[in-house]
C-alpha cells in the first residue's frame, strides 16, 4: 500500500517542503498541556482533538451551551503556542466579512493618483489595482496566509445560513482560498481548525463530511469537581464535590435550561465569596437562581431537591 500519512499528503498538495510535525505527541501529552492551561479534558476530548491534529482535519464540536467548546479551541491555541484567529458567525455573514474584500477606496485613490491615462494602459492598471496591496484579508484568508502556526476558530457555525456554509468548504478540505483576480492562495502551514455549533439547526452533509466530530456533553461529577477546583481559587475539595453533585442532580431533571459549566463556576465563586465552606438546604435555595434562569425551573428544582425520594 502506498498510502501516505495524512499530514504528508496534505503538505504535498499544499506544496510545502516538509510536513509540519503534529502539535502534540499523544492524547496524554495533549491532555497534560491542556491541564496546564486550566482546561481539564476527558479522555474522549483529548483523543479526538489529538486525532484532528494528527490527521490534519477540522474538528466540529457540538453540544449544549456552556460546556467548553470555545474554551477548548482557546486552550489548544495557548498550549501549542499558536495564534488564535476567530471568526464569530452570525446571520448575514458574507464573503466580504469572512474571506476577503478588495479595498475599493484605495483602488480609487490609486487610479486618481496616476492621473488620466489612455485606454491602452488599462490592462496594466487593472492588474495593478487587483494586487495583494489592495486586498483586505478577513479571518479565513488570514488564517490561510499566516506563516506562523495558527488555530482557526469558527464559532457558532449554526448561525449562518445553509448557503453561507459553502464558503467554508474549500478551506476545510483543501486549506486554500481561490480569489478570481489573484489565483489560489494556499496555506503555508497546516492550521488547526475548530468549528463550534450549538445545534440550533442541522449542518449540511458536505460540511460534516469534511470534519471530525466531537460531541461535548456536560462533564461527569468527578470532572466537574476538578474543573471547579482548578478554576475557582479558594474553594475546598469538599465544597467543590458537593456543588458538582447538586448540579449533576439538577441536570437529570427535566428543566428548560440545564445549568452550564460556566454557571456552575459562577455559583462556586459566589459561595466562596460568601465565605461558606459547606452547602446546606437554605443556602442552596437562596442561591439557586445563579444556576437556573427560568422561574418555572427554579420552582421545580426547589420542590424536587427538598423531596428525598426523587419520584
Amino acid at each position, binding site marked *: 500500500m502506498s*498510502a501516505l*500519512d*495524512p499530514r504528508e499528503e496534505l503538505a504535498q498538495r499544499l506544496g510545502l517542503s516538509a510536513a509540519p510535525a503534529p502539535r502534540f505527541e499523544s*492524547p496524554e501529552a495533549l491532555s497534560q498541556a491542556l491541564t496546564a492551561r486550566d482546561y481539564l479534558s476527558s*479522555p*474522549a476530548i483529548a*483523543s*479526538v482533538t*489529538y*486525532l*484532528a491534529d*494528527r*490527521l490534519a*482535519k477540522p*474538528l*466540529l464540536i*457540538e*453540544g449544549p451551551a456552556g460546556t467548553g467548546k470555545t474554551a477548548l479551541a482557546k486552550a489548544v491555541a495557548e498550549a501549542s503556542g499558536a495564534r488564535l484567529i476567530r471568526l464569530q458567525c452570525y*446571520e448575514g455573514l458574507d464573503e466580504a466579512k469572512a474571506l476577503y474584500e478588495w479595498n475599493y477606496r484605495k483602488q480609487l485613490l490609486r487610479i486618481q493618483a496616476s492621473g488620466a491615462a489612455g485606454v491602452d494602459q488599462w490592462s496594466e492598471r487593472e492588474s495593478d489595482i487587483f494586487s495583494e496591496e489592495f486586498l483586505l484579508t478577513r479571518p479565513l484568508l488570514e488564517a490561510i496566509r499566516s506563516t506562523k502556526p495558527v488555530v482557526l476558530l469558527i464559532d457558532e457555525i449554526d448561525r449562518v*445560513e445553509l448557503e453561507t456554509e459553502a464558503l467554508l468548504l474549500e478551506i476545510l478540505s483543501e486549506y486554500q482560498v481561490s480569489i478570481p483576480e489573484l489565483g489560489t492562495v494556499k496555506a503555508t502551514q497546516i492550521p488547526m481548525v475548530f468549528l463550534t455549533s450549538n*445545534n*440550533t*439547526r*442541522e449542518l449540511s*452533509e458536505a460540511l*460534516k*463530511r469534511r*470534519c*471530525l*466530530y*466531537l*460531541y461535548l456533553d456536560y462533564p461527569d461529577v*468527578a470532572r466537574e469537581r476538578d474543573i471547579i477546583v482548578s478554576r475557582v481559587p479558594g474553594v475546598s475539595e469538599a465544597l467543590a464535590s458537593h456543588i458538582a*453533585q*447538586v448540579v*449533576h*442532580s439538577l441536570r*437529570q431533571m*427535566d428543566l*428548560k435550561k440545564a445549568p452550564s459549566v460556566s454557571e456552575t463556576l459562577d455559583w462556586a465563586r459566589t459561595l466562596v465569596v460568601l465565605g461558606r465552606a459547606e*452547602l*446546606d*438546604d437554605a443556602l*442552596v435555595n437562596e442561591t439557586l437562581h445563579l444556576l437556573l434562569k*427560568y*422561574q*418555572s425551573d427554579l420552582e421545580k428544582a426547589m420542590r*424536587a*431537591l*427538598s*423531596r*428525598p*425520594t*426523587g419520584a
Partner: protein
Amino acid sequence: MLDLLGGFIAELRTAGLPVSLGEHVDAARALESIDLGDRELFRAALRATLVKRGEHLAAFDRLFTLYFAPRLATPEPEPDDEPHVTAATTTRAPAGGQSSGELRDEMLAAMMANDGAGLQAGARQAVDRYAGIEKGRPVGAAYYLYRTLRHLDVDGLASELEAAFTPENASPLEARLAHDQAVEAIDGLRDALEQEILSQLVDDRGVEAMAEATRRPLPEDVDVMQANREELANLEKALVPLGRKLAARLAQKRRKRRRGPVDVRRTIRESLSTGGVPLDIRFRPPHPVKPDIVVMADMSGSVASFARFTLLLVHALNDEFTRVRSFVFVDGVDEVSHLFEACDDPTEAADRIANEANMVVADGHSDYGRVVEQFADRYLATLQPRSTLLILGDARNNYHLARSEAFAAITRRVKRVYWLNPEPQGYWRSGDSVLGEYAPYCDDVLECRTLRQLETFVMGLS
C-alpha cells in the same frame, strides 16, 4: 482489520446511520495513523470519523460494544451440558472461591468507590454465576440481565447504596443527592452487566447475529404507537431540542421568503436618478404570515401517546404560529388551549389534560361522528378562514356513524385540513376505520408514525 471495519460500517448503515464512502476512508486512514493498542483512541477515531450527529452516538456505542468488546481470552472448552450455577463458577472466574455474599459485597464496594474496573470484574463473575447462559439457545440478552439482577437483589443493593451515601442526620437535600447517586450507580451496574452478557453472547453466536438481534431503530425512527416506556421517555426528551431546532429553521425560512410586493413610491423616487426610467425596482419588505393552527387530537388509549407528542411539538413552536388552539376528544370534544396558556411548561399541560379535559361523554370509546357533530355545534363559529386544522387520530370509529356532513361543514370554514394518522398506511380504511369518509374533505392525509415524519410535516406547514 479492514474487513472488520467494513462489517461494522455496514451494520451502522443498517441501523440507519448515514455513513458515506468518504467517511469510511477517513476512518480507515485514522486507524492507520494511530496506535491500535490504545482502546480509547481507537474508539475515539471511529466515533469522530463515522458519527456526525449527537443523536446517533448511542447507536454507535451499542454497536461498538458488540463489535470491539474486549473478548474473553479463551472460549470455554468444556461442553457445559447442565447449566448449573456451581458448574459455571468452577470452570471460570479466577476468584472462584467466593461466596455469593462476598461477590455482592465486592460489587457494592466497587460501586461506592466508583471503580469501573472493579465493577466490570464483578459483573463478569456475576454473569458467569447467575445468568446461566446456555450456548446456542436463542434467548435475548434482556432475559439474562433480568436473571442476574434478580439474583443480585438489585433493589436491596439500591437501598444499601443509598443508605451508605446518606450522611447521618441528612437534610432533605443530602438525602436527595444520595438517592440520585444510588440510582446512577445502579444504572452503571446494569450497563456493566449488559455489556458482559452481550460480549458472552457475541462469543457464542457471532457478531452479525447479535447485531441483528439487538437492532433498535434510531430515536427519530421509533414507531410511536409501538414504543415501550423507555423509548417514549427518550422521545419526549428529544422533542424539546427538536422544537427549538424547528423554530429556528421556521423563523429563518420565513425571513428569507420571497420579497414583498413592488413599492411604487420608492421605485419612482429611485427612478429620478436615471431620468425617470425605473431601472431598479424596489420591493416592500415581506409581510410575515404566520399560520393559525387548530389541533384536534384523539386522546383515546390507542393513539394517546402520539397525540401527546404532536401537541407538545406544536405548542413548543407556539411563537412560530399566530395562534394555536387545541382540542382533545374521545367520544366528546373539549378545548384545552387554556391549559397550555396557563402552564409555562407544555409537558405539565399535557399531563393535566387527562384529568381536566372533559372528553368522555358516553362510554369512553372513540366516536368520531359524535365528536365532529359536537365540534361543529360548539366551536364552528370560532374557526377562522385562515386557520389550518390538524386532526390527529386513527379514525377507528368503533362502528359508530361517521357523520361526514358535519365534518364537511367544519372543513369549509378553514383554509386547510390535514389528517395525521399514526397507523401504518396499509391498515387504513380497513375494519372500523372511517378515514375513507373523511379523507375527501382533507387537503392531505398523511401517515405520521415517527418523529422524523412529524418533523417533515411541521416544516412544510409554514
